[in-house]
């Protein structure tokens, strides 16, 4: 964990330092551009790696009643036998984290009947994961303000919605704050639950620290280290149009927090395709979720299906013919009379 924290902090501080040393061009232009390209290329590489591997068997996890007899109501979504059902199942997984919603927590208790294992519904992980991802999305959408000129109406809407609470000046965007809280929850959860602490790798902490860093630096820029928005927009538009410029308002250490922010986002982008964060795209490929359950109705084809090799009936009968004849079992070939008795001796 310490390693991950140092790594994330290091990236932030380094960016600040580099900018202060006059390397704004590197941190503000070359880095984000590279990050974007790496992200794009990486994601394509990742997704094609998965897509290239065949799916030999149809192995859906059925989470509800199958479609069988006409009067038994099948579970169209949890045990989907049609493409529409599969789409609905995937939709619920992607948009509402359906499987995580099932989560329970097991606990051992003691009562009059002796020791017992009980299961509680446990939805915190689901709640905070949803908040985390949706706030991330909201923050992402809001940032399009910097990439688009004129700013499209839906971004203004998103901002209005996000700032609905009307707290503070400038308005507090809930998404940023909740994102931070949710990320902290996920971090604390890893540290506090012994099961999770036991399995959490630096690779699990690192992205959390990155996100916390991104959210924190973003919020700080907005409220404390007020950064000149017009300059930021100018820089980013320069980035988008590939005509680099470092405007006055974000030169040197004045824009330190901004560069920290940019560097952390870049790190996240670069890290994403090569790490577990690729789960975002991976979910779509998951054969236990994206396959129909009509496996007895429609044959699934395995592209590498090996040839059949098995012990044939003929071999079997050859092995047991005499005994089978004696037991009165029907045979394909009658036993040769006498022959077997001779060889048996």
């Amino acid at each position, binding site marked *: 964990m310490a390693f991950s924290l140092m790594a994330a902090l290091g990236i932030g501080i380094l960016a600040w330092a580099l900018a202060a040393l006059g390397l704004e061009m590197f941190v503000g232009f070359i880095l984000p551009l590279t990050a974007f390209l790496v992200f794009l290329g990486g994601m394509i590489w990742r997704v094609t790696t998965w897509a290239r591997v065949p799916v030999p068997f149809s*192995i859906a996890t059925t989470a509800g009643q199958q479609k069988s007899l006409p009067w038994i109501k099948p579970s169209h979504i949890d045990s989907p036998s049609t493409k529409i059902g599969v789409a609905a199942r995937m939709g619920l997984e992607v948009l509402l984290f359906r499987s995580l919603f099932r989560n329970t927590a097991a606990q*051992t208790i003691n009562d009059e009947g002796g020791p017992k294992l009980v299961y509680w519904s446990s939805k915190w992980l689901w709640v905070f994961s949803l908040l985390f991802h949706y706030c991330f999305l909201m923050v992402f959408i809001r940032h399009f303000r910097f990439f688009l000129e004129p700013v499209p109406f839906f971004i203004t809407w998103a901002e209005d919605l996000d700032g609905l609470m009307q707290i503070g000046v400038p308005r507090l965007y809930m998404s940023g704050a909740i994102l931070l809280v949710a990320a902290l929850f996920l971090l604390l959860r890893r540290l506090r639950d012994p099961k999770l602490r036991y399995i959490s790798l630096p690779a*699990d902490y690192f992205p959390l620290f990155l996100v916390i860093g991104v959210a924190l630096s973003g919020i700080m820029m907005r409220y404390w280290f007020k950064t000149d928005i017009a300059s930021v927009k100018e820089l980013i538009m320069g980035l988008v149009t590939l005509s680099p410029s470092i405007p006055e308002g974000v030169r040197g250490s004045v824009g330190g927090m901004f560069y920290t922010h940019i560097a952390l986002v870049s790190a996240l982008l670069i890290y994403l395709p090569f790490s577990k964060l690729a789960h975002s795209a991976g979910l779509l490929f998951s054969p236990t979720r994206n396959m129909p359950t*009509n496996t*007895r109705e429609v044959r699934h084809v395995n592209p590498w299906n090996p040839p059949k090799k098995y012990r044939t009936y003929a071999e079997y009968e050859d*092995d*047991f013919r005499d005994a089978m004849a004696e037991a009165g079992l029907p045979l394909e070939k009658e036993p040769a009379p006498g022959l077997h008795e001779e060889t048996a001796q």
Partner: protein
Amino acid sequence: MAKLPSIQELVQSSLPRFPGATLEGTGWMRTKPAFTPGSYCYPAKLDTMKGLGMPNPHEWAPENEDWNLPQGWEKIIYKALEDRLKKYRSLQLFMDICVRCGACADKCHFFLGTGDPKNMPVLRAELLRSVYRKDFTLAGKLLGKVGGSRALDPEIIKEWFAYFYQCTECRRCSLFCPYGIDTAEITMIARELLHEVGLGIHWIMDPVSNCNRTGNHLGIQPHAFKEIVEFLCEDIEAVTGINITPPFNEKGHEVLFITPSGDVFAEPGIFTFMGYLMLFHEIGLDYTLSTYASEGGNFGLFTSSEMMKKINAKMYAEAERLGSKWILGGECGHMWRVIHQYMDTMNGPTPKHMTTPVSPITGTVFSHAASTKMVHIAEFTADLIKHDKLNLKPERNDDKIVTFHDSCNPARAMGLLEEPREVLRAVCNNFVEMPENTIREQTFCCGSGSGLNTDEIMELRMRAGLPRGNALRYVQQKNGVNTMACICAIDRATLPPLADYWAPGVTVTGLHELVANALVMKGEMPRTMDLRQEDLEYPDDVPEDDDNGDAQGEE
């Protein structure tokens, strides 16, 4: 067998422990499994492995320091893993996308029953994933342990053997994982890797070898198979007065019936088997049994996809030879995973003369089995009952307060949830569900699936059966449940010791045993005994002046 701890002791020692915990999340890499008697399954016999043509067969013992791994075993594992990464998207994806959110952790009965963190599905998968990272990812290569990767060494192979044989491939974890990561899939592939270096367990490889030769796991030869079934028919006659002579290996029947061989071999499975025969006789089904395809189960599923295919191939081959139009399958869990999700892909398309199954009694078209042409007996019987084709006296089962154990595979790989319940409700009047987190798609394993139903690991099995036993005990205490029905041959072998331990006094029965108890057959004598030849608490009225008593004595 070693003495089992008391329930109190067992539950106490099932609380999670986290040896060697560190903040880097790799502390577990320093812990080693202990191979003490009772903690591991016996290795497969050298001859069995050789006979099946398994790679690198050799002598070895779990308790030995050196497992005699073959020359260049690292290379073998590496190659085998690489090969499977190219063949299975599931594996490649599941290696890449786990976020270690822990949602799966306390969903596994092995973790709940042992408290061993390596039994958390996520960590079970990390046992392989850490090796994958080292060899197949850039970050793993660059960062080493910080990146959660580690290089193969013989200790890792031992660890795999310990923990991939503490997973019953039940897929409960996959239900709760937000990305559908199925640790069973990883276990299956890890076991394939272990088989590549010659490591297998006796309880799996022996049935596989038997099944290959004799047609069934138990190695019952054709004539003996017929004889056993005929014995069971005598028992049926003793209970009902009806003489049944089931056809064997006969050509030209509409239906080929295949069930796990456990059902003809041992109690209480045999009572279920008797139930099938009585039902078929009563409705006049045109069917045959086969001694060649006398095994519905498929321990190949627990060995390798190749072995699964090889064993399963006999079903269609036999249907083709006998000219059966469709196949009816008995009650079994893993058998039905193979049939529902693998058979058609592996050994289909079906022989040309086979047709979409239609119930000859009700005319119901089983269009959901249009391609595999194989119907589950619970579907078949539920349909008969719905169409009122059976004369049932559920009162005969009135002494029983029944609960139903969903087997993992029919529940999470088929979605066969309502059919057996419809049947149960029709054949017994007292049906009680276990708590909702332990049934249907959330069902808990019997604790001994996937070839782990071997006696040398009885304590482990009782531990893995903790969630199931706990739920059973709960309804026993609360509702007076005294019978647990199931639709799985492995369950029928594994649940009785589980019930004896966790909820003594609960009897385990197959679904069709209850059906046959309630079934009023044409021309039968009034029943005074159930299929186990125990006196019925609520016997049929025996009409006075009846000579049924003599009929029973004849023969």
